[in-house]
């Protein structure tokens, strides 16, 4: 199993108040799966994604990623996992505004010390792969929303991660552009990548092979399409 989650819970502390966002979630996801996570607003989708992406730590429970027990890792080990194993695509793109497309894409390689020439080459290939070969030197504010999300996808896949996580990747895009982005995810899945994405749209979720529905911090349903 690529991902194994057992009795995972996450409670936010808001001053005096405790806000339970996830309540005992158990989940297994295998290699080369294509999973969509759905559910009403506030049901814990982003919370789950952030934990899967090692951006946040659970309050309790176990998370095993690629046979590593992530729940016991320290900051540096988590940074390493985020760099090597995970490619995160955000709803709001999260690109460095001062850096051009190429630099944004090669950033993960900088942190693992990939030599310059190799890095450049890999970043260019990744940009070509998402169809942005001709926008390499553009800064985020010189790109359209769809193009920005492509840069973010190129960045997510540059290290050839075990999973690509996407939290509402089409949330800020019109449906036509969203459809284009989804085509990239489908291609990536067909090329052997594992993809987990959060969406509110049924037509987006339909690209996935498996749909997990969250409700109020629980997994309500988990269906795999035939």
């Amino acid at each position, binding site marked *: 199993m690529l991902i194994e989650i057992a009795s995972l819970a996450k409670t936010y502390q808001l001053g005096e108040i405790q806000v339970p966002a996830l309540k005992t979630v158990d989940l297994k996801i295998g290699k080369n799966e294509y999973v969509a996570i759905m559910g009403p607003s506030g049901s814990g989708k982003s919370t789950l994604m*952030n934990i899967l*992406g090692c*951006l*946040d730590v659970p309050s309790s429970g176990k998370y095993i990623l690629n046979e590593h027990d992530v729940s016991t890792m320290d*900051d*540096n080990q988590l*940074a*390493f996992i*985020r*760099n*090597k194993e995970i490619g*995160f695509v*955000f709803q*709001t793109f*999260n*690109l*460095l505004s*001062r850096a051009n497309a190429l630099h944004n894409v090669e*950033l*993960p390689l*900088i*942190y*693992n*010390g*990939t*030599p*310059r020439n190799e*890095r450049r080459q890999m970043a260019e290939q990744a940009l070509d792969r998402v169809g942005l070969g001709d926008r390499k030197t553009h800064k985020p504010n010189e790109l359209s929303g769809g193009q920005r999300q492509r840069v973010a996808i190129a*960045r997510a896949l540059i*290290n050839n991660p075990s999973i690509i996580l996407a939290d509402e990747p089409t949330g800020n895009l019109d449906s036509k552009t969203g459809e284009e982005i989804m085509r990239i995810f489908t291609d990536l899945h067909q090329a052997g990548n594992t993809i987990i994405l959060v969406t509110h749209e049924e037509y987006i979720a339909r690209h996935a092979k498996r749909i997990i529905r969250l409700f109020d911090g629980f997994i309500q349903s988990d269906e795999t399409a035939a």
Partner: protein
Amino acid sequence: MRILTLYREYFSMAWDALRSHKMRSFLTTLGILIGVTTIITIWTTIEGLNQYVYGQLSNIGSSSIYVEKFPWVITGDFWKYRNRKEVNWKEYQAVLKQVTLASHVAPEVFSIKKVEFKKIQLEGVFIIGSSEAYTFTSSVYPVEGRFITEQDVSNNRFVTVLGSELAKRLFDKENAVGKRIKIDNDVYLVIGVLEKKGNFFGQSMDDYAVVPIGTFRRVYGMHRGLRISVMTDYPEQIEDLKDEVRGVMRKERKLHPSAEDDFSINQQDMLSDLYKKLTSTLFAIVFIIGGISLLVGGIGIMNIMLVSVTERTREIGIRKAIGATRSNILTQFLLEAVAISSMGGLIGIIFGYLAGLAVLAQMDITTGVSLTSIMIGFGFSAFVGITAGFYPAYKASKLSPIESLRYDQ
């Protein structure tokens, strides 16, 4: 390779950050700039002065001591010295005959006189009356003609040896030796011209005439106070020489063993010691002033870095999300702080250096680039950058990735 890759990124990030806030970075760096400028200005000035002063002091020679009424560096009661007896001819004779460690002993008397040659009249020329030994004790040697001899002195001849500057003023390019000049109302035969010694603290040391001391005393009176210069060929014996001279002088003056000296034995050390004292005080003051501006500059940097960390919380989140470690973030912000302060340091070094040169130029001193001052400038600014940048950088490194990403979303 790994390290290189990372540091290239850090530096280009720091550069980007500075460039995107040019005015802010400049204002932030002002404190450091002023601090480093102050320190480097004074440092350069003092280094130049040192070179100059020690060069000048070496003119006095470390192998001569001077018996005089007054000490070169007066501490305490001036009247105590004022009331002393003048050093006299008998004492000179005693030192000359009895001091065994001396290689040369010269008596010296001074006066300011009018000098004339044909139509040229020079007022206020320094006249020294001395013996043949003066050439050694003061290490002045003739380049034309000869120095005064024992015979000139014992026969009280009206002969004179001119410093090169005086010779030039009187004769320009003409040959001086063999000419007759008037000093006051007496005619002297020029027998030699001395080699050029240059300036001593801006004063020409070549604008004087030496005449035999007997002649001087005959013309200007026997009771003028003397200065006795005593030289040894072995500078390491200078302290012994001093003791011997002191003994002879005390015996000559019949001083009671418990009485203190009523004469001074001067030597070059006294001046260099005084100079050291003066400059070390100056140093201390400057380091305090420079230190305060560096402190203020450091606080400014810390403040701006805290602002920068807050402004860039999102960026920190993004970097962490794609694999930056705590130490990556720490180093990035630390280097940014160092970059700001080094920028100030660099400009400060340049300004300070130029200002130092300008100050020295006022004193007619030229000096080269000093590596020490450059290193001090960079050292200080980097130190301030690291110290001031550490807390903000540490704060940045501790941010949680998810909270930073959510910041102002």
